[in-house]
C-alpha cells in the first residue's frame, strides 16, 4: 500500500509539471488562488478561453478523449494526474465543465462520425461553449416528466419544431451549442417518448433569460424555445430513444474522479485557529474541537475515498461505487459547516460585506450558495436512491406513472379525477 506513482506515472507527472510551469498564465495565479466558492476570482472569459486553447494544443484540454476528436489520447490515470497538477488554473476551465464533462461524451456516443470530427475539437479547444438543456420548471428530479415538445414539420424536410421551456441551464448565456432533450410522443409512457438533439444556441426562437438565484447571483438561466427549427441530422440517437441517450450524459455527470469536491474544512479549521475568544483561539474550546473533528473525519474520508478510486484507475480497473458518495457528503457538510462558522462569529456572523465580515465573508457566501449544491446535478434524495438501488441492490420506487401514456399522467394543477 502506497501513494507512489509508478515509473510511467512519475515521468508523466514531471512532463505535465514542466509544461504547466512554462505555459500557465502565472499572472493570474494569485487571483485564482483567492477565488472563493463558485467564483472565478475576477478572471475573464478571455482568460478561460486562452488557457483552454493552450491546453488543447498540447492535448491536455480533454486528456483522455481520442486524438481525432480533439483529445490527448491519454489514459484515465493520466487525466487524474493532469488535474492534480493543474492546481489553481483549473478554475479557469469552469466555463467548459459542462461541455467537456457531459455534452462532449454524449455527442461522442451518439453523433455521426462527421459531426463528431466537426463539433468535438471546437468544444475541446474552448472555441465553442456548450450547455445542457435538461431540467424544466415541472421536471427536476423527475426528468422524464419533461414537456418541451419537438414535432416534425409537415413540409417534408424532416426538420423538427421545438416549443417549450428549460431551466437551471448553467452558462446558457455564454453558450454556442446545447444538447436538448424533448418530448416527441406524449401518447407513450414518459420514458419512451423522448428524443435528444443538439442545436446552436444562436438559432432563431431561442431566448435565454438569466435567473436571479436565491443568493443574488445569476449563474443559471431559463431558456425559452418558440418554434425553433432543428434539422433531423442534429438528432442524437433514434426518435423516442432520448432517455437512453440522456443516461450517457447523467452517468458522466456523476463520474468525476480525482477532482474532489470542496468541503470548506481547511478554511474552517484555519478560521478556528485564528478566531480569538476569552479563552484563547476558538480551537481550544472542547465543543468546537468535537465539531471540527467530525468535519475533519468526513473531509479525510472523502479524500481517501478518492485515492482508492485513483488507485483503481492506476491499475487499469474501474473504480467502485464508493465514489458516488462525494457530492452527497460534501454538499450537506458545506452547508452545515457554513452555519457553524457564522455561529462562531456571534452577532457579527450576519455581516456579508467582505470588508467588514470575518474571513472576507467567505462563510456567508458559502451559506447562501450551499443549498444549490444539495440540489444541482441530482438532489441529496436522488443520490441516496442511487446508492440504495445501484450499490445496495434495493428495489426501485414504485412508479405509478411508469406505464401510463404521458398525456394522462396527473401533474401539479391537474390532479387525477
Amino acid at each position, binding site marked *: 500500500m502506497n501513494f507512489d506513482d509508478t515509473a510511467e506515472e512519475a515521468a508523466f507527472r514531471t512532463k505535465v509539471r514542466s509544461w504547466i510551469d512554462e505555459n500557465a498564465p502565472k499572472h493570474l495565479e494569485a487571483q485564482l488562488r483567492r477565488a472563493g466558492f463558485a467564483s472565478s476570482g475576477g478572471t475573464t472569459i478571455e482568460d478561460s478561453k486562452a488557457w483552454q486553447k493552450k491546453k488543447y494544443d498540447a492535448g491536455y484540454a480533454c486528456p483522455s478523449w481520442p486524438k481525432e476528436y480533439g483529445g490527448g489520447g491519454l489514459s484515465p490515470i493520466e487525466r487524474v494526474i493532469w488535474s492534480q497538477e493543474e492546481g489553481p488554473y483549473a478554475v479557469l476551465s469552469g466555463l467548459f465543465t459542462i461541455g467537456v464533462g457531459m455534452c462532449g461524451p454524449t455527442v461522442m456516443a451518439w453523433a455521426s462520425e462527421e459531426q463528431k470530427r466537426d463539433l468535438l475539437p471546437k468544444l475541446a479547444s474552448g472555441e465553442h461553449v456548450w450547455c445542457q438543456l435538461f431540467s424544466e420548471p415541472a421536471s427536476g428530479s423527475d426528468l422524464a416528466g419533461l414537456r418541451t415538445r419537438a414535432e416534425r414539420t409537415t413540409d417534408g424536410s424532416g426538420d423538427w419544431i421545438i416549443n417549450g421551456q428549460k431551466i437551471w441551464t448553467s452558462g446558457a448565456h455564454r453558450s454556442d451549442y446545447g444538447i436538448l432533450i424533448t418530448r416527441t410522443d406524449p401518447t407513450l409512457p414518459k420514458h419512451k417518448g423522448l428524443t435528444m438533439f443538439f442545436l446552436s444556441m444562436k438559432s432563431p426562437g431561442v431566448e435565454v433569460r438569466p435567473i436571479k438565484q436565491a443568493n443574488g447571483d445569476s449563474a443559471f438561466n431559463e431558456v425559452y424555445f418558440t418554434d425553433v427549427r432543428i434539422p433531423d441530422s442534429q438528432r442524437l440517437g433514434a426518435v423516442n430513444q432520448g432517455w437512453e441517450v440522456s443516461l450517457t450524459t447523467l452517468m458522466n455527470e456523476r463520474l468525476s474522479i480525482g477532482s474532489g469536491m470542496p468541503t470548506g474544512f481547511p478554511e474552517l*479549521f484555519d478560521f478556528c485557529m485564528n478566531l480569538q475568544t476569552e479563552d484563547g483561539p476558538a480551537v481550544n474550546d472542547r465543543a468546537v474541537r468535537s465539531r471540527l473533528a467530525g468535519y475533519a473525519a468526513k473531509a479525510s*474520508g472523502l479524500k481517501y475515498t478518492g485515492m482508492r478510486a485513483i488507485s483503481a484507475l*492506476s491499475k487499469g480497473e474501474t473504480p467502485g461505487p464508493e465514489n458516488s458518495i462525494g457530492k452527497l457528503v460534501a454538499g450537506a457538510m458545506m452547508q452545515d459547516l457554513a452555519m457553524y462558522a457564522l455561529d462562531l462569529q456571534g452577532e457579527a456572523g450576519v455581516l456579508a460585506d467582505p470588508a467588514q465580515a470575518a474571513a472576507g465573508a467567505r462563510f456567508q457566501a458559502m451559506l447562501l450558495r450551499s443549498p444549490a449544491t444539495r440540489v444541482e446535478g441530482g438532489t441529496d434524495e436522488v443520490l441516496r436512491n442511487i446508492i440504495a438501488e445501484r450499490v445496495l441492490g434495493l428495489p426501485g420506487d414504485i412508479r405509478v406513472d411508469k406505464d401510463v401514456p404521458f398525456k394522462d399522467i396527473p401533474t401539479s394543477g391537474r390532479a387525477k379525477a
Partner: protein
Amino acid sequence: MNFDFSPEQKQLRDQARRFLADKCPPAAVRAVLEGSHTHDAALWRGLGEMGFLGAAIPEEYGGVGLGHLELCVIAEEIGRALAPVPIASSIYLTAEALMLAGGEAQKQAWLPKLASGEAIGAFALGEGVGRVTEASIRATVSGGKLSGRKAPVADGEIADVAVVAAREGGKVSLFLVDLNGPGVTRETVTSIDPTRGQAVLVFADAPAERIGAVGDGWRLASEVMDRAAILMAFEQVGGADRALEMGRDYALERMAFGRQIGSFQAIKHMLADMYVAATLARSNAFYGAWALSTNAAELPVAAATARVSATEAFQLCAKNNIQVHGGMGFTWAFDCHLFYRRSNALALALGSKSTWEDLLIDRLRQRNEAAA
C-alpha cells in the same frame, strides 16, 4: 498510486473470512453471550494455530512475520464475525507495547505465547469513571511491586499478563505484570457487551517489571493506543459492513403494506446513509493502515481520524440495523443487538470518541504549525 491491499493480503482476508464463517457463526458469539465464559477458547486457539494472531509479530518472536497490513485485514474479519476473543487486548495492545518498548527478555518471554494464543495479554490504564489522562493514573510501583486498582480492564479475568500504567517516584511508566503471580485479585464485571469480558484488577504488591524508560509511560501508552486504534478501526469497519448487510437483507425480505420495506425511501435513505458512513470509515481506516505499515509521521493524525470515523460508522450502522428490523430487531433472538452491543463497547475501548476527537484536533494543529 496503489492505495489498496495487495492480492495476497486480499487472499488472506478471504481465508480469515472463511475460517471465521466456519468457527465463529453467530451461534458461537451467542454461546459466549449466554454462557458463563467471556471468550471462545477453542476459537482463540484456532486463530493462533492459523497464524492470524501472530501476523504482525516477527518470526524470531514466534510470529508469522507478515506485517501490520495483514493484521488489518484479519482485524476487519474479526469485526465482521463479532469474534468473542481477546484479540484487541492481547495483540493490538499488549504485543504492540512489547514490540515497541519491551526489553529482549520480555519479548522472548511473552511474544511467542501471545502469537500462538497460549497466553493472553491485557492493557490496564484506566482507574474508574471519567476520561483517562496521565493525571488520572494513581497506581504506584515501589521496589518492583505494584499496588492499585485498575477498572475496567478488558479481558482482565482471562489474561495471563498485563501491561499496567503506574507511578514510580511520581512519574508514570508502563509495567509488565504476571497476572497469575502473587498480589493479583480479579473480579469479573458485567458490561454492555458480555462477548468481550471486563474485569476489575486489584494489585497488592504484585511483582512488576518496567517496560521502556522511567516516566515514558504515558507517551508510550499513547503510541500503543494509536496503533491499536487503527487495528480496531478495521474491526469496527468490518462490524459496520456486516450490520449494513443485515439491514439491507432484511429490507429486501420483509414485506409490509404489500411491498418490500426496502422499497420505501425512508428505509432506503437510512441504508444509504449507513453505506456513506461505512465507506468514509473504510477509506480513513486505509489511511491508518498505510500510516501504521510505513510508520509515517502522520500516524497520530491517521489513527485519530480512523478511530473517530470508524466509531461513528459502526454505531450508526448497528443502531440503524435495529431500526430497519423494527420490533424484531429488539428481540433477544435476532442478532442485531450483538452488533449494537459490540459497536458501543468498541466506541469506548481505547478511550471514548470525544477523547479521540480532542486528540485529532490537537494533532491537526501540531501538523499545521509544523508545516507553517
